Every structure is written in structure tokens, then in C-alpha cells.
């Protein structure tokens, strides 16, 4: 670890903190319908859709609208991939994507996971990248934001029957939040060297006389939303490690800021909508504590390096799977950021990180990506934990727990537990099957405990809708395409529906004025309790699975042990 490294961390945190209030202010106005500079477009959309923007929806209707929209998006993206060979904008002559891969990729993008079993520049046509993947980057993010706003309304309202209008929230999130920021960000990224062309791949003759075909494409427009929407699916196979997809330290910083921007701003939207910004800051603080702890461990372990390489006379951190322009700090900081949010873009290969450093991204996802989280998804994940924290606090003093003047009762706690328990069921269940099936173990790219970690990482990333990977696992097989696809679907929709149910039942409750016995939810004590609950639930659920993978591998590495294939 170096002083310069920590200065880079501090700079990053300062930028995020500075963005919370302005973004929160702006987004609050957007979702209250006070931002109107694209009114004509908005009106035309509602008219064509035949929806009345003033007509709000019950949580069930809201959920149905969301599911229908996502279902159609899935069908469209699947069809586009299967038909791309016969469609225009395909200068590299890509043929139809195989059915199981197209299934996996379509779910992956609709659920905001963006797991990459495909290699962008070797599988997808420009049309698929733009009209398929880029579109889902936008609308899956807008879906997450809409859901978070609906849940916030649930907490903010009293004795209400509705939680908002999905079509209006979806449209406003896309037009007023995601699109304008992306236009600016994409142009800055091009300025810094990111390609943006519909022309064919370029053939070069290298200085030594070799032939090099250089893949290009409309990279910047897709990368901007890939980060801002915490999608993470790369234009290129190497994702944000590819020099075209992340040319320098500035683009790297901008991309990391884009990953956290909307999620961080939503904590402030929450505070503003419930009428007390401190409530938002308390949640942001709990996220910050967990984030910095992750950075410290990941950076510290990685900087210490690999003893097996030091024994060969080499110095410093391992550079296997890293880029020189990023080095150790920018690689590990990116790894923590991308998994704290549900982004999943990578600028270094997580599989080649030191075992404990690679465990931090894994743990971040297992905790439910509630540190900032996916756009929207992080906030609703954290609000579920708030309910558990208050339930625990209520049990300790024997009072009915309250949050923001609403009593938390059996129904909310049941729904919360449903949302929280489905992740470990999917992650641990599928991993357990994959490590005993020959078709599961055949895909593992590394021997020893790391092979198991690859499968654990894959299902964790899928179920948590992250999309980053231990890339050594060959995921493009029938088994992994199908099971990870199912994990992504369950991990997304079986959390969304309970969250919406909670929104509906909270909105219907009466507000009770705070009394002397009310536990204040904006102070350090609450933040501490929330962090504790997150770590205890995550720790109890996943510690055994981590002990078998990264922890035992780190111990083996420190003891000088290596693993060879075939034994």
C-alpha cells in the first residue's frame, strides 16, 4: 500500500460524497414530475402507450407492468441475437448466437446482471450491441430505479393505496436521468480515446511486419450506460481492462464514479422523500463503512503480493491479469466498486487476484450488493436490511419496531426474509451441485480450491445480478448457460416482488408520531447496528462456503503450496 494509493481512494470518495446531494435533489424533482424539459417526448410516449400519467398503480399492477416489460425485453433481445446474421450493421459478419448462449445473455441483460458468457468483439454484431444490449443497459437500470422509487414512496406515504405509475417512472428514469448523463459521459470518453464508429475492424501491419486486426465499434455510447446503469457487460471480452474500453486513469476514475453515482444519489432521494435527509445519510454512512473496509482488505492483501513469485526474485504485487496503467490500487479499487454496486465490469481479472483479495468482491456480492448497489437494487437491498435491523432492535427491548413512523409487522418481516433467503438458496444450492457434477467441474480452469471458488463466484455473481466473473471458468456450456440463467432470474425477480409487496403494505399504513421510546434511525448507533446486522447475516450464511475456497487457498499460498492440474 502506498500514500499515493490512499490519496486516490480519498479523491474517489470525495467525488462521490459531493455528488450525493445534487443528484438526490435532481432525481427527487424528476420523480415528483417537476423536471419538464422533455415534456413533449414524454407526452407522446404516454399517448402512444395509452397510459394516463396521473393514474397511479397498486403495487401488484406496478409489479405486473414491470414483469411484462421485462418479459418482452427478453424476447426481443433473444430474437435479435438469433437473427443478427441476417440483419444490417454487421461488418464483421457475425452469425446467429447459439440458443443457450442467447438465452443466457438475454436474461443476463434484462436482469441487469450482464454476465458475459460471450466475447463481445467475437460474437455480437454492432446492431445487437446497440439495439439489443445498449437498450437493456438503459431499461434494466431504469427498472431498478423505478422499483427503488416505488419502495421509497411506500415508506414516505401514509394510508395510500398506490406506489406510483411504472410507465411514468420508467420513462422519467430513462429520459431525465440516464440519457442526458450518458450523452455527456460518452463524448468525454471518446475525447479520451474510446472508439465510436460503425466502420469495420481495422487491419494494421505491425512494426515487425505482422498482421493485426483491431476490433473497433460504437464503444463509447455503450460503455457510458454500462457504467452509469451498473450493468457491466463489456463491448469487448476483456471489458474495462481493454485499452479501448478504458484508455487511461481519467476514464477509469470517471467509470468508477459513474458506477456509484445513481445509487449514492438515491440514498438522498430517499431522505428527501421521507422528509428527513439524515435518514438517507445514515444509510449512506453504513454503505461507506462497509465499502472502505472492503477496499482496505482487498488493496492490502493484493499489495502484499504472491510469496511464490517473490521466491523467484520478483518484487511487489503480482501483475498477472492487471494492466500497467492501472497498477495495484486502481485495479483493486475498481474490483471493490464494481461488486459493491451490481456493476460487474472489471479492469483486472479477479481470478488472478490474491485469494483473500478476490474474496472481497465475492463477499460484497453475497452481502447482497447493498453497498450503493445496482441502480436502485442497492437501496432496496439495504432497506430490507434496515427492516431486519429494526426487528432485531425491537426484539431486544420488547417493542414493536418502527421505521419513519410506520410500524413494522409480521408481513413486512416475512417478505424481507423471503427476499433475503432466496439468494443463499440459489447460490449455495447450485454451487453444491456444480462441484459434484462432471459437467460442472469440467469447466473449471484452475486446480485446487480455486476451481471451487470459480463455481461459487459464478452463481454468486449471477444470483446477485453482478456479472463479474472468475474468468477461468468456461461458462459457455449448456449447464452453466442454463443454471446461471435461472440463478439470475430468481435473484432479480424473487427480490423485486417481495420488495414491491413491502412497498405496498408500508404505503397503506398510518403514520404514528415518534414517542420517547422510538429508536432514532439517523444516528451512529443505528448505523452501527445496521452494519452489524449486514455482517452477521452475511457471515453466518456464507462463511463456511468462503472457508472452503478463498480462505483455504490464501493459507495454502502463504505456506508455499501450489496446485497442479490433474491431481
Amino acid at each position, binding site marked *: 500500500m502506498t500514500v*499515493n494509493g490512499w490519496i486516490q481512494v480519498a479523491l474517489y470518495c470525495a467525488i462521490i460524497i459531493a455528488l450525493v446531494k445534487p443528484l438526490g435533489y435532481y432525481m427527487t424533482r424528476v420523480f415528483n414530475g417537476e423536471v419538464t424539459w422533455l415534456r413533449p417526448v414524454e407526452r407522446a410516449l404516454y399517448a402512444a402507450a395509452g397510459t394516463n400519467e396521473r393514474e397511479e398503480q397498486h403495487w401488484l399492477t406496478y409489479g405486473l407492468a414491470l414483469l411484462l416489460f421485462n418479459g418482452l425485453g427478453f424476447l426481443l433481445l433473444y430474437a435479435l441475437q438469433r437473427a443478427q446474421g441476417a440483419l444490417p450493421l454487421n461488418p464483421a459478419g457475425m452469425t446467429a448466437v447459439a440458443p443457450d448462449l442467447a438465452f443466457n445473455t438475454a436474461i443476463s441483460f434484462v436482469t441487469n446482471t450482464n454476465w458475459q458468457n460471450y*466475447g463481445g468483439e467475437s460474437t455480437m454484431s454492432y446492431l445487437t450491441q446497440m439495439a439489443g444490449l445498449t437498450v437493456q443497459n438503459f431499461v434494466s437500470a431504469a427498472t431498478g430505479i423505478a422499483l427503488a422509487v416505488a419502495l421509497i414512496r411506500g415508506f414516505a406515504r401514509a394510508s395510500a393505496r398506490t406506489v406510483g405509475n411504472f410507465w411514468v417512472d*420508467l420513462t422519467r428514469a430513462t429520459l431525465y436521468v440516464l440519457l442526458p448523463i450518458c450523452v455527456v459521459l460518452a463524448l468525454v470518453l471518446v475525447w479520451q480515446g474510446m472508439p*465510436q464508429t460503425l466502420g469495420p475492424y481495422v487491419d494494421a501491419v505491425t*512494426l515487425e511486419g505482422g498482421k493485426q*486486426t483491431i476490433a473497433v465499434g460504437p464503444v463509447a455510447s455503450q460503455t457510458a450506460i454500462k457504467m452509469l446503469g451498473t450493468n457491466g457487460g463489456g463491448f*469487448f471480452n476483456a471489458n474495462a481492462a481493454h485499452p479501448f474500453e478504458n484508455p487511461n486513469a481519467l476514464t477509469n476514475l470517471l467509470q468508477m464514479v459513474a458506477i456509484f453515482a445513481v445509487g449514492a444519489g438515491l440514498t438522498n432521494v430517499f431522505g428527501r422523500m421521507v422528509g428527513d435527509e439524515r435518514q438517507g445519510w445514515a444509510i449512506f454512512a453504513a454503505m461507506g463503512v462497509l465499502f472502505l473496509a472492503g477496499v482496505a482488505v482487498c488493496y492490502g492483501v493484493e499489495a502484499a503480493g504472491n510469496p511464490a513469485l517473490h521466491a523467484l526474485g520478483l518484487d511487489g504485487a503480482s501483475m498477472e491479469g492487471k494492466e500497467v496503467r492501472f497498477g495495484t490500487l486502481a485495479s483493486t479499487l475498481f474490483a471493490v466498486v464494481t461488486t459493491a454496486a451490481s456493476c460487474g465490469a472489471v479492469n483486472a481479472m479477479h481470478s488472478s487476484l490474491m485469494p483473500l483479495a478476490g474474496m472481497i468482491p465475492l463477499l460484497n456480492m453475497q452481502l447482497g450488493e447493498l453497498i450503493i448497489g445496482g441502480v436502485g437494487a442497492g437501496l432496496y437491498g439495504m432497506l430490507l436490511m434496515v427492516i431486519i435491523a429494526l426487528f432485531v432492535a425491537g426484539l431486544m427491548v420488547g417493542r414493536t419496531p418502527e421505521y419513519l413512523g410506520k410500524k413494522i409487522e409480521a408481513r413486512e418481516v416475512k417478505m424481507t426474509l423471503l427476499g433475503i433467503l432466496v439468494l443463499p438458496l440459489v447460490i449455495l444450492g447450485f454451487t453444491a451441485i456444480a462441484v459434484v457434477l462432471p459437467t460442472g467441474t469440467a469447466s473449471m480452469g484452475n486446480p485446487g*480450491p480455486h476451481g471451487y471458488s470459480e463455481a461459487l463466484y459464478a452463481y454468486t455473481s449471477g444470483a446477485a445480478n453482478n456479472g463479474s466473473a472468475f474468468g477461468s471458468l468456461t461458462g459457455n456450456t449448456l449447464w452453466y448457460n442454463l443454471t446461471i440463467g435461472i440463478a439470475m432470474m430468481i435473484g432479480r425477480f424473487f427480490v423485486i416482488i417481495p420488495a414491491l409487496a413491502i412497498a405496498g403494505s408500508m404505503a397503506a399504513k398510518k403514520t404514528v408520531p415518534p414517542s420517547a421510546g422510538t429508536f432514532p434511525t439517523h444516528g451512529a448507533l443505528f448505523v452501527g447496528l445496521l452494519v452489524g446486522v449486514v455482517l452477521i447475516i452475511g457471515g453466518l450464511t456464507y462463511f463456511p462456503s468462503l472457508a472452503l475456497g478463498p480462505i483455504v487457498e490464501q493459507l495454502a499460498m502463504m505456506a508455499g503450496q501450489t496446485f497442479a492440474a490433474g491431481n
Partner: protein
Amino acid sequence: MLKQLRPALVMIVALTLITGLAYPYAITSIAQAVFPRQAGGSLIERNGQVVGSALIGQAFTGDRYFHGRLSATVAPDPADPSKSVAAPYNAANSGASNLAPTNKALIDRVQADVQMLRTAASAGAAVPMDLVTTSASGLDPDITPEAALFQVPRVAKARSLGEGQVRRLVEQNVQGRLLGVLGEPRINVLALNLALDDLGKR
């Protein structure tokens, strides 16, 4: 159910047109007009021939040039397209080794490369980490200043130039941290080698 079907259909089509066609086309037009060099891939031409991209590393194996990072990219096997063969710096199929830190294959590979560099290099020089490890993209255009300085004796000898002269060229090509803070110091290998060729002409 049916009441929500129409908005779902209209919205997915409309948002596809807006975010999937209008947005990327608009960005492409502006980018091509304002930043044509970057938008096209930062290509470098010499004598009218594209020799590469300023941002994409390329393979250097001879003694007359500085070498970049090791690259783990692959290409389909011409004999059997379902298999792949090593193809370093394949800029149409980026990728990494993804080897775990405890994988014996990684340690053995690094050991062999360290020994090779040690015998080739002047005695006693420490082998830089980035010269014996593969990059994340397989297309890393940069090496650390230490990795460039390590190669100075070999390149100077192959070109019959003074070591001091080549070292000065390396030092001129170091790109520091942005604003002194962000990223890491680095040297673009293609730019350095182009400058090296120019040095020979003068």
C-alpha cells in the same frame, strides 16, 4: 393484464428506437465530427500504412525493439475451429490467462521467463514484475519505466546505439500520473519503438 400489454409493447419499441438507435447514432455523428482520430481507434500511420493503434499493444519479439507485456490472447485453431491456439496481441479477441495465484502452471511459466530474462540481461538487474506476467486484456499498450530501462542494454546493442542515448529516449517517453495522482507511471511501447526507429534515421 391486457391493459398493461399495450404500454409494454409501445415502451419497449419506443425505448429501443431512442436508446438503441437515436442515441448511439447521435453520439457517433458528434464523435466523428469533433474527435475523428479517437473515434476511429487512435490509428497510427507510417508512410500511408496503418501500423497499429496508439492504445493497443502489439507483439514485439526481435532484439531491435522494446518488448511489451506477455499476452494470453488466443485465436481459433485453423485445423479445428472448436479449439483455440495462442495468438499474442490478437486485437480481435481480447482476453487474459485467468490463472490463479496458486496455480503451478503460473509459477512454472514465470520461473522459466525469469530465467530467460536473467541470462539475456546484464548480470544482477532485477527482473520487473510486469515483464513476466500477462496483462488483463492481452493488449496492454504499456510497460513500467523499470521494464523499459531493463531492456535498454539489449536494444542498444542490437541497434549499435549508445546505452545513454537509448536510456534518454526511454526517459522522454515516460507518462507520469495524471495530475501527479491518478494511475501509474508508464511507457507506451509502440510510441517508444516508433521513436526508436526515428532515432536510427537521424
